C-alpha cells in the first residue's frame, strides 16, 4: 500500500514537471548516456570507425573527428555543421540522409543542441575503461539494505521516488533460491526445517547448503554450455556423435569446486599450454572444439577450417568481452573501435590447431577430429590394445593366405579370370605396402577370392574389427586444443579464405590494454589477458551474466554486447561494483552468487503492482523481485523431483529420456547409421535434463526455448506458445511424473492428498480457495474415470514405470490428472 501512495505522488510530481523537453532542460547532458547512443545509431555507420565506408571524410566517433570540419563547435550549436545538417529540410543536405531510414526525433535534436551548448564534452565508452569500485551510496533506505547491492538499488529507487517491495515469505524464498542455485525445488523436509528455524541467519544457512550442493554445479553449467555451444553431436549431415560430454562434466565439477573464474577461463582456452599441464587442464580446452563440424561430402576443408576459426573468435569475443567482433571479419567495425586487423590478430591465436576442418570417422556412430585426448580407463585401454593385437594377428593370417594364393596364381594352380590382376601379381609377387599394385591385389583378394577360398580368416578379421568398433563407440576420445601446427595468419579480404592479405601476429584489439611485454604470444597469453586486472570488459560481462542468472535480465540487457551499440545501463555503478567485487575477490563466483541471493533486493516479493507494471515493466530498477518462466530444463527436472522420480547422480554419458519415438527419423536419410532413438530404460529415464543427449540437428523436443547450441548464446528467452502447453500436458515425461506424484500422496488423508502434491511442486500449501478448486477438479476427473475404468488404466500406463497395483485405479487416475494440472500451473512453471 505504501508503495502505491508513493508512486501516485511521484506521478503527480512528474505531471507537474510537464513535458519531456522540460525534463531535458533540467539536467546536464551526459555524453555516454545521452549523446553517443544517438550518434552511434544514426551517424557512425557512415561517419564511424570503418574508413572504407566513411562518407565525406568525416568521423564523429572520436573527439578529433567531431572537432574537425566544424562538425561540432563547443558552445556554438548554430555554427556547428552537425546541427545545421540535422535541422535542414534540404534532402541533399539532410542528416541522416532520407534513404538511410534513420530518423532523429525532435527531442534527440534538442539534446544534441543542448550538448553543444554545454560545451560538447566528450568521453570514451564507459565499458572500455577498467571499472573502479564506486563509492557505496548513503541514503534513507540504509535500514533496509543488507549489503552494498541494496544501497545501490535503494539509491536509484530514491531517485525515482520509489520504495522497495517487502520481503517474500519463507516458502517463496526457499523455492526461489533453490531453483536459482540448483535448478531443483526444495524437498518438503527442507521447507519444514527452514520454517522451523527461527535463527536470524536461517536463510543464510539455506543459501550455504545450496551453494555446497553438487547440484549447484549442474545448474550453473547450463548457461555455460549454451555459451560454449556444447552438443553431443557435430551437426550437419551424418551428425556424428562426439565425446564432448566429458568436458561437460569438467564444467560441472569446476563450478562445484568454485574454481576461480580466471583459472576457469585460462584452463578452457589454453589449459594445454600451461606448464606441465594436467589431463584435466587439457580436457578443459574442449571448450573451443565444441563448434559445429561439417562432414558433408564435397565441402571444402580449408573453408570449413576457417569457419571453425571464425566461430572461436566470435565465441571468445561474445563470451568474455561482450563484443561482436564478427563484424570485423569483413571490414573495420562500424561502431566499436575494432579493426579488421584486430579480428585476425585474435584469430591467429586459434590458427595453430592440427585440424583440417572436417569431421573424421571414428566409427559408424562417432565422428570426431584430431587433436583428441584419450580419456579411457586403464581397462578400456588394455582392452583396446588387446583387440588391436588380435586384429593384427588376424590380418597377418589373411596376408599369409594372400601370399599363398598369389603363389598358386603364379604357378597356375588357381584360375583368375581377371587378366589385369594376374599381370599385377606378376609384377608384384609378394604383398608390398609401398606399391599401388599391391593394394589393388589385396582388394581383389579380399573381395573376390577370400569368400570362395576359405572364409575363416576374413571372418576373423571382421570379428575383431567389429569388436574394436564396438569398443570405440564407447571409448572417450575428446576433441581438445593444441598448437602443434603453427600457421601464418592473414587478414582475409571480406572474410574470404581464398583472399589472404597482410600477415598478422597474435595480438589483442588495439583499443584495449596491450598484452604485457613478457606475455607469451599465444592462446595462453590471450587467455591470461582476458582476465587481467586492467582489461575492462570480462569482469563486467561475467558479473552481468551472474546477475542475469538471478534476475532474468542483465543489468546490461544486451548481455552479448557491451560495445557502443549496447544498452547504457541504468545501474552502471552497481554493475561496476559487482565487477570489481568479482575480480578482487579472486574471481570467486560463489561469493558473488551469495552476495546477490542474500541481498534484500533479491529477497523482495515478486508481486507485480499495476504501477510498477506501468512504470517499469521490465523491472530494471528492482523495486520488486523478478518473476519469470523457468527454463524448460528446470520444468522437467522439477516434475521429476516433485514426483520422486528424479535420479540425482552426477555426470556421465548422455542419456536418452522420452522423446517422440521417431524424433530422429528425418536423419535416417543418410543411411550411414541407425538413427533410431535409443530410448533409455530404468534410471536413465529420470536423470536431470542436463544429461539428455543433445543432437545438434534435432534438439530434444521437450526442451523448448533452449539455445540451439550452434552459436554462442548468453541470453535465454522465455516465450509462451501453445506448443509449450502441448508439451507439458501431453509429453509422457509429465504424465508419468504426475502419476508418480499422485502415487506418492495417496497414503495421506484423502482431503490432504492434493494439498501435499501441490506443496511438493510449489513449496507452499494451497489456500482455502485453491483447496476447493482442487477438490472440485478431482471430483470431475473421478466421475469421468469411474465411468470408464479402461481409460483410467490406459492413463496410468503412460511411461515405463508400472502403476502401484495396490491402489484403486479410478482414484489414482483422478489424482494423476489433477497432479498433471498442478505441474502445469503458471506458478509451477514460473520462478517467483
Amino acid at each position: 500500500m505504501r508503495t502505491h501512495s508513493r508512486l501516485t505522488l511521484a506521478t503527480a510530481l512528474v505531471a507537474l514537471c510537464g513535458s519531456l523537453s522540460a525534463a531535458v532542460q533540467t539536467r546536464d547532458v551526459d555524453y555516454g548516456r545521452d549523446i553517443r547512443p544517438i550518434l552511434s545509431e544514426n551517424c557512425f555507420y557512415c561517419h564511424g570507425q570503418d574508413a572504407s565506408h566513411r562518407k565525406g571524410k568525416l568521423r564523429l566517433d572520436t573527439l578529433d573527428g567531431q572537432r574537425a570540419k566544424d562538425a561540432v563547435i563547443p558552445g556554438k550549436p548554430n555554427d556547428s555543421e552537425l546541427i545545421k545538417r540535422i535541422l535542414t529540410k534540404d534532402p541533399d543536405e539532410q542528416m541522416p540522409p532520407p534513404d538511410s531510414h534513420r530518423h532523429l526525433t525532435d527531442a534527440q535534436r534538442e539534446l544534441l543542441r543542448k550538448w553543444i551548448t554545454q560545451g560538447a564534452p566528450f568521453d570514451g565508452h564507459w565499458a572500455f575503461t577498467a571499472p573502479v569500485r564506486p563509492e557505496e551510496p548513503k541514503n534513507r533506505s540504509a535500514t533496509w539494505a543488507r549489503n552494498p547491492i541494496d544501497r545501490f538499488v535503494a539509491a536509484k529507487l530514491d531517485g525515482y521516488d520509489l520504495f522497495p517491495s517487502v520481503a517474500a515469505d519463507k516458502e517463496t524464498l526457499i523455492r526461489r533460491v533453490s531453483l536459482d542455485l540448483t535448478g531443483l525445488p526444495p524437498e518438503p523436509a527442507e521447507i519444514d526445517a527452514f520454517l522451523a528455524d527461527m535463527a536470524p541467519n536461517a536463510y543464510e544457512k539455506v543459501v550455504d547448503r545450496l551453494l555446497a550442493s553438487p547440484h549447484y554445479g549442474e545448474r550453473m553449467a547450463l548457461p555455460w554450455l549454451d555459451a560454449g555451444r556444447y552438443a553431443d553431436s557435430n551437426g550437419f549431415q551424418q551428425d556424428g556423435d562426439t565425446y564432448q560430454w566429458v568436458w561437460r562434466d569438467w564444467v560441472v565439477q569446476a563450478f562445484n569446486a568454485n574454481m576461480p573464474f580466471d583459472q576457469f577461463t585460462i584452463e578452457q582456452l589454453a589449459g594445454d599450454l600451461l606448464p606441465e599441464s594436467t589431463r584435466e587442464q587439457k580436457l578443459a580446452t574442449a571448450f573451443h572444439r565444441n563448434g559445429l563440424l561439417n562432414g558433408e561430402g564435397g565441402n571444402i576443408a580449408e573453408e570449413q577450417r576457417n569457419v571453425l576459426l571464425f566461430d572461436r573468435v566470435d565465441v571468445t569475443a561474445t563470451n568474455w568481452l561482450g563484443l561482436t567482433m564478427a563484424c570485423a571479419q569483413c571490414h573495420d567495425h562500424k561502431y566499436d573501435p575494432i579493426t579488421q586487423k584486430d579480428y585476425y590478430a585474435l584469430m591467429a591465436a586459434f590458427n595453430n590447431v592440427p585440424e583440417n576442418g572436417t569431421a573424421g570417422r571414428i566409427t559408424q556412430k562417432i565422428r570426431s577430429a584430431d587433436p583428441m585426448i584419450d580419456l579411457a580407463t586403464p581397462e578400456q585401454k588394455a582392452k583396446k590394445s588387446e583387440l588391436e593385437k588380435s586384429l593384427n594377428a588376424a590380418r597377418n593370417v589373411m596376408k599369409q593366405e594372400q601370399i599363398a594364393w598369389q603363389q598358386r596364381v603364379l604357378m597356375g594352380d588357381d584360375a583368375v579370370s581377371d587378366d589385369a590382376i594376374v599381370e599385377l601379381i606378376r609384377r608384384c609377387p609378394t604383398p608390398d605396402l609401398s606399391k599401388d599394385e599391391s593394394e589393388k591385389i589385396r582388394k581383389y583378394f579380399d573381395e573376390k577370392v577370400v569368400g570362395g577360398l576359405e572364409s575363416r580368416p576374413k571372418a576373423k578379421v571382421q570379428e575383431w574389427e567389429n569388436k574394436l568398433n564396438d569398443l570405440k563407440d564407447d571409448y572417450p576420445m575428446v576433441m581438445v586444443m593444441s598448437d602443434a601446427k603453427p600457421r601464418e595468419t592473414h587478414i582475409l579480404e571480406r572474410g574470404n579464405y581464398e583472399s589472404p592479405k597482410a600477415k598478422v601476429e597474435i595480438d589483442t584489439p588495439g583499443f584495449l590494454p596491450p598484452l604485457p611485454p613478457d606475455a607469451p604470444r599465444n592462446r595462453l597469453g590471450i587467455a591470461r589477458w582476458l582476465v587481467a586486472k586492467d582489461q575492462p570488459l570480462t569482469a563486467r560481462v561475467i558479473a552481468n551474466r551472474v546477475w542475469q542468472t538471478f534476475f532474468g535480465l542483465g543489468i546490461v540487457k544486451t548481455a552479448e554486447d557491451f560495445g557502443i551499440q549496447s544498452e547504457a545501463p541504468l545501474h552502471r555503478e552497481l554493475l561496476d561494483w559487482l565487477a570489481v567485487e568479482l575480480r578482487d575477490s579472486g574471481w570467486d563466483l560463489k561469493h558473488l552468487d551469495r552476495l546477490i541471493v542474500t541481498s534484500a533486493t533479491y529477497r523482495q516479493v515478486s508481486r507485480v503492482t499495476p504501477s510498477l507494471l506501468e512504470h517499469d515493466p521490465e523491472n530494471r530498477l528492482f523495486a520488486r523481485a523478478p518473476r519469470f518462466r523457468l527454463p524448460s530444463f528446470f520444468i522437467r527436472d522439477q516434475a521429476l523431483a516433485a514426483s520422486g522420480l528424479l535420479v540425482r547422480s552426477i555426470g556421465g554419458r548422455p542419456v536418452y529420456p522420452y522423446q517422440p519415438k521417431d524424433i530422429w527419423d528425418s536423419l535416417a536419410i543418410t543411411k550411414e547409421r541407425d538413427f533410431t532413438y535409443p530410448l533409455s530404460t530404468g534410471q536413465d529415464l529420470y536423470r536431470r535434463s542436463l544429461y539428455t543427449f543433445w543432437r545438434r540437428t534435432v534438439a530434444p523436443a521437450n526442451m523448448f526455448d533452449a539455445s540451439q547450441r550452434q552459436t554462442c548464446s548468453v541470453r535465454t528467452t522465455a516465450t509462451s506458445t501453445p506448443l509449450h502447453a502441448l508439451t507439458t500436458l501431453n509429453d509422457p515425461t509429465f504424465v508419468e511424473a504426475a502419476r508418480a506424484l499422485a502415487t506418492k500422496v495417496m497414503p495421506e488423508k484423502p482431503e490432504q492428498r492434493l494439498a501435499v502434491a501441490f506443496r511438493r511442486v510449489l513449496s507452499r500449501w494451497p489456500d482455502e480457495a485453491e483447496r476447493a478448486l482442487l477438490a472440485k477438479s478431482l471430483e470431475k476427473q473421478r466421475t469421468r474415470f469411474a465411468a470408464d475404468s479402461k481409460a483410467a488404466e490406459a492413463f496410468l500406463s503412460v511411461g515405463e514405470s508400472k502403476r502401484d497395483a495396490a491402489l484403486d485405479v479410478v482414484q489414482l487416475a483422478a489424482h494423476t490428472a489433477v497432479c498433471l494440472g498442478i505441474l502445469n500451473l503458471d506458478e509451477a512453471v514460473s520462478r517467483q
Partner: protein
Amino acid sequence: MTLSLSRRQLLGQAAAGLSLAGISGLAGRQVFADDSAVAALAQAQDWGAGPSALKGLPHFAPKAKRVILLWMGGGMSHVDLYDHKPGLEKLRFQDLPDSVRSGARLSSMTAGYKSFPILPPIKPFKQYGQSGTHMSELLPHIGAMADDICLINSMQTEAVNHSPGVTFSLSGSQVPGRPTLGAWLSYALGTQATDLPGFVVMTSTDEARTCGQLFYEHYWSSGFIPSRFQGVRFRGGGDPVLYLGDPAGMDRAGKRDLLDDLGELNRHRLTQVGDPEIDTRIAQYEMSYKMQSSVPDLLDIDQEPQHVLDLYGPDVKKRGSYAFNCLLARRLAERGSRCIQLMHSGWDQHNNWSYHLENMVRDTDQPSGGLLKDLKQRGMLDDTLVVMATEFGRTVFLQGNKDNPKSYGRDHFGRAYSTWMAGAGVKKGAVYGETDEFGYNVVRDKMHVHDWQATVLHLLGIDHTRLTYRYQGRQFRLSDVHGEVAKGVLA
C-alpha cells in the same frame, strides 16, 4: 490488491502522460522500450490474435498476403529442367571450354577434375503455353501453368554445399544462427491464422532416400528474434505437431475439464501476484486445446472432392509425401498461415542422374503444377506468392566416368541456376535473366540470393532494407547488407 485498483492506476498514468521510460532515458534512449515493446506487441499478435503486424508494416501495399515456398533440396538441375540451351546436344562429352569455366568455385568433389565433359539435358525441352516458355518436357504440369510463372534463369549463390547453401538462401548467412524468411515474415506481418501457426514447415523426401539431404531445424529457425516466430514443423508421421495428441486415457472432455480448472487456479493466482504473463499463459493453453482439433481438421483431406485431389497426383493421399504437403499448403493458405515452407529433398544427383532425376520430377511436377492450378481456380493465386527454389543448380559438365551412364551425374553449381515464382504481383509467363550458351555464367539480370530475398519481401509489402532486428549492437536484415529488388520479376 484487486484489479479494479490497477485500472484506476493505469488511468492515472495515462493522464500523467509520462512513464519512467521517458524520464530516465530521455528521448534518445528508451531504456525500457525497444525490445520489450516489440515483444509485447509480438505476444499480442502471436497465435491467433488475428492480423496484426509490427508498427509501420507492411511498408507499402503488398501484392501477396502469404507465401508458399517449394524448396527443392539437394540442388535442382537448371541444365536439365529450366535453362534451355539447345546447343548442348551437339557438344555431348566435349570438354567445356576453359574460357567459360574460369573462376567458378567448385565443390571439392570436382575441383580437382582435369576434364569437364559436357552432359546435355536428360530430355528435350519444349515450349509451354501462350508465353512459349521453354522447360523440360519432363515438366508437363508445371509447364501447363507456364503462363502464370516467372522463370528465373540467372540465380547466383556463393555456397558450394547443401547446408550452407540452404541456410544462406533462407537466412542470408551461410552459418546457422540468423532468422529465416518465414520467421521474418511472422515477426513483421503477424499471422491471419486464428488457430494454426503462422509459419509452418513440411518436409518430404524421395522414396529411395538416395541423397542424404537433411532438414536441419535452423532452416526454419527464428535465430535471435523471439523463438515464437520460428516455424512449426508438421511431421509426416505420428503426431503432426509434437505432443499434439492427448495422453492415453485422457479424452477431450477430460482435457477440457482439466484446462477449465487449471484456468481457474491460474486466475486466482493472477489476482494475488498481478503478473499479466499469467493471462498470456492461460490464453496459450486455450490455444493449444484449439490446435488439438484444428490440426487434425487441417489434415483431414477426405473433405476434398476427388477432382481437387486429382490435381495433386497419385501420391496425394500418402501422408508425408510432397503431394500431400502441397495440398496441405493450400489448406493452410486458406486458413491464414503467413509462410508455408515445403522442403522436398533428393535432388543431389552426383552419380544417379539417369534414373533419379526422373523420379524426382515425377514426385514434384504434378503436385507443384496442381497446387498452382488449384490456387488459381480459387482465385487465391491473386494474393498468394508461390516460389520454387533450391540451394544451387548443377554443373553442365558431368561428374564421374562418362563411359558409365549408370554412375555419372552432375556436381553442385552455384554460379548460375534456376528458380521460379508465380502468383501475386509476379509477371506472368515471363523469363527473367539469362546465362551463356552453357548455362554456366549469368549474362543478363543476375539474381543473387540477396536479390531474391529482397524481391520476395517486396512482394509481401516489405522493404528489405527497413525490416531489421537489433542484435549484438547491429541491425540485422534477411538480405544482410546487400540485395536489390528485381523489378523485372514484378508484374
